[in-house]
């Protein structure tokens, strides 16, 4: 007797591209389970790293059919990679689950069995393209500015939109005044110590351009010439995670062209998710360009880590506030950057850092996860916000666009008035000796001095 329907999908073995040794590295010790957000919430091995690896391994070996249930457990994975940090055996979980899911979803796309308008139209065709996104957001921004949006949100009219579109709209940050385009070049302040290119991305550039402005100024204060190469675009993470490896490769190759590697000491990234993807350009596709992609990836560095290595210039301003810092998964787990942002912030005169309990547990944003797995995303979002509020901090900092959107949306739902900032925004205030709490207008659209490109000396 069978109670539930559990179907088998006809896709070819999605584990085909995964090295057997990578799968066999897991020794089933279970030390990773408690680091996993979904295991922590559900307590089911199938929703924990060890169980998921076993599922994928058995599918790979042909001893387990890829049933609907198996897929659900794999799709519920946030790909936050907390399990990688936890694993003493060095199991590269991301390199198992990412190709596996990409293949699984790609097979769907081919058969158009589970054709999903949301994924096809919104996630793949709209999100990764800053210009399209900007156009689409135009009317939304207007209504935000006129307060219509707030009324709609409060009346719950959003519920009338198809669910996932409504979620997407819910995530939108509060209206910020239109932020001017980023300058192609901003010169170092003081002694010049490095020449860097800033990666701006897609969602980050549309919704968080003020963070880019702040980042540029902080880099300038730390003696960097900052370039923003034109022609760069989305990192490709959204495509890859939706199973569109080809689309992702196109975007990657566009970036390869946009960044002339020899001109810069580093390609600096300020959002954890983009950084993680860029740093893995060398592993996702095997073709003639792979060596070049590897070279590109080797130049990519997180902005906090970069400035820490350079030696941070102390800010002149003071910020008398107590704040807390949330670790973005793709910064902390995929890139293993946890100390640098905290160390930088700790040097700001007056600033008090309060430890955030469960800081390393995903907030539920996880790229587009929030839009496709709403229930788990909400649970994790609520949990994150409860932890944040418990600290009593007057602001929360996070170095990733997705986290900032998710946390702000959850704070709004909880009725809390806590600003969510990127560490670069706070540091920017400190360097410029601006008052706290921040005034969003003050951070927009100004760099330090001259913004015309310098003479190029090769």
């Amino acid at each position, binding site marked *: 007797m069978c109670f539930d329907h559990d179907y088998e999908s006809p896709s070819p073995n999605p584990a085909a591209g995964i090295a057997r040794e990578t799968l066999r590295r897991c020794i089933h*010790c*279970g*030390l990773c389970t*408690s680091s996993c957000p979904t295991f922590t919430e559900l*307590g089911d091995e199938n929703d924990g790293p060890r169980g998921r690896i076993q599922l994928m391994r058995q599918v790979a070996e042909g001893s387990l059919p890829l049933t609907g249930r198996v897929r659900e457990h794999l799709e519920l994975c946030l790909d936050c990679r907390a399990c990688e940090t936890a694993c*003493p055996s060095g199991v590269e979980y991301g390199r198992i689950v990412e190709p596996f899911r990409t293949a699984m979803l790609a097979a769907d796309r081919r058969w158009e069995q589970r054709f999903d308008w949301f994924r096809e139209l919104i996630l793949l065709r709209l999100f990764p393209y800053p210009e399209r996104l900007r156009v689409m957001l135009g009317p939304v921004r207007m209504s935000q500015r006129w307060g219509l949006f707030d009324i709609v949100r409060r009346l719950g009219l959003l519920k009338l939109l198809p669910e996932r579109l409504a979620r997407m709209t819910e995530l939108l940050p509060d209206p910020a005044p239109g932020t001017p385009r980023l300058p192609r070049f901003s010169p170092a302040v003081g002694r010049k110590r490095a020449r860097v290119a800033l990666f701006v991305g897609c969602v980050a550039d549309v919704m968080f351009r003020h963070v880019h402005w702040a980042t540029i100024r902080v880099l300038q204060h730390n003696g960097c010439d900052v370039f923003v190469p034109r022609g760069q675009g989305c990192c490709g993470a959204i495509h890859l995670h939706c199973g569109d490896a080809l689309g992702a490769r196109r975007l990657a190759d566009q970036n390869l062209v946009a960044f002339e590697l020899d001109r810069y000491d580093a390609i600096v990234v300020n959002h954890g998710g983009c950084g993680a993807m860029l740093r893995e350009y060398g592993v996702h596709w095997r073709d003639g360009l792979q060596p070049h992609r590897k070279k590109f990836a080797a130049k990519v560095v997180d902005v906090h880590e970069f400035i820490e290595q350079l030696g941070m210039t102390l800010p002149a301003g003071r910020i008398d506030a107590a704040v807390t810092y949330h670790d973005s998964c793709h910064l902390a787990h995929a890139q293993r950057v946890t100390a640098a942002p905290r160390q930088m912030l700790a040097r700001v005169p007056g600033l008090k850092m309060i430890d955030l309990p469960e800081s390393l547990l995903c907030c539920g944003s996880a790229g587009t996860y929030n839009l496709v797995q709403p229930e788990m995303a909400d649970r994790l979002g609520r949990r994150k916000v409860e932890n944040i509020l418990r600290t009593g901090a007057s602001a929360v900092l996070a170095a990733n666009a997705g986290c900032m959107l998710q946390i702000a949306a959850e704070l709004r739902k909880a009725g809390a008035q806590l600003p969510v900032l990127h560490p670069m925004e706070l540091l920017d205030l400190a360097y410029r000796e601006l008052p706290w709490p921040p005034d969003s207008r003050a951070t927009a659209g100004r760099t330090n001095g001259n913004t015309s490109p310098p003479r190029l000396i090769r």
Partner: protein
Amino acid sequence: MALPELIAELRRVLSPDRVLHAPSELAAYDCDAYTVVRRRPTAVVFPHDPAEVSAVVTQCAQRRVPLIPRGAGTGLAGGCVPIDGAVVLMLTRLNRILEINLRDRWALVEAGVPNLQLARALAGTGYHYAPDPSSQGASTIGGNVATNAGGPHTLKYGVTVNHVLGLEVVLGDGSVRRFGPVAGAGAPDISGLIVGSEGRMGIVTKAWVRLTPNPHEFRTFRAIYGDVESATRTVSRIIAAGIIPAAMELMDRGIIGAVEDAYHFGFSREAEAVLIIEIDGPPPGLDRQQAQILELCAQCGAQEVLAAADPAMRDALWKCRKMAVGAVGRLSPSYFIQDGVVPRTQLPHILRRIAEVAAANRVRIVNVAHAGDGNVHPIILYDDADPEQLRRALRAGEELLLECIACGGSVTAEHGIGIEKREFMSRQYAAADLKAMQRTAEVFDPFEILNPGKLLPDRTAGAGAGRPNE
């Protein structure tokens, strides 16, 4: 067995989404961290509270279907292997810390709380929960209680049983009972009996655990040796000198390589053995002990002794030691780990024997040890794709355990008997003693449904239950 009805009943007393029974979802429950024996359960259930645990037990008892409590599944003796078509009962959703009472120095926690979650909740209070198994990041308080877990610091502070003040337990007839005076007036003080019973005398749902004041100060040292014997001699000499360090841990060359790959602490890969020694207490006494320990290390031939300069370095050192076993995936696709105990003076002997046994059986064995306790953890490496290697590995493991018994020791200190070592019980205990244990278990589990076939070599277990996978 009327399984479909049982599943229907379980879905009714819990809720349908808290009962797994699709074959594809059961695969992840076929073993714990001991992967030699794997069996498929009938179902996996996720109760939320003791009342639901009791309802599940009642359903299984009525049908005489075996039931296996499971926490984090980090057990190393196969205690969670669902033999005989058992139902697995997950305690992971009983995961709240209910009370921390600093004045009376206890905490009340649900069984599914990971050990580290409690440790984190206590940070900054000036108190801690002393048992610190290396698996503490994941393993649950309930699992720690059921296996009487130890850890590096049990040398000075004792094992789990010394830190459990009371328990709430669901017995095999479905009744919910409390033991230990802290659990309420009239609760008989027999929690000690339940601790270490590996799920056979009841399912632990809550534990009142003792909180220990943090020591004034720590001193942590890392000593490097050119041979294992000098390291073990140091251990005996330190204890003989009347010093009880907080911890005294050994790692050999094989495991040091894996740890170094994982955490880049800076251990020399050339070292044959590393000892981690920690002392704690009020500073005046520590200075004297420190001088003595450094002297003894030097006398025994330590090549280098380094004191942890700050708390960060101490943490890094402990991380290396605690994650060592989990790092063996860097050495081999599969392993199992033995948990033998010998009198401390026999440490040099047993480590020599381990090397001989490895050579004779052509398997690779690397070692970590709670050396201060005479508790050795030879880690036997093998490739699960090769049945012949597994056979040799199992033979080596068996020879080592017999050697421990011959030395006047035991086949387990902290990992438990589980399914792995139950045949050894009759070598260590007389038939009458085993009978007495069996009858004690029956008092708590009249229908013999709680984890039968584990711990005791009893009749209920299906024949060949402990046989490795094909």
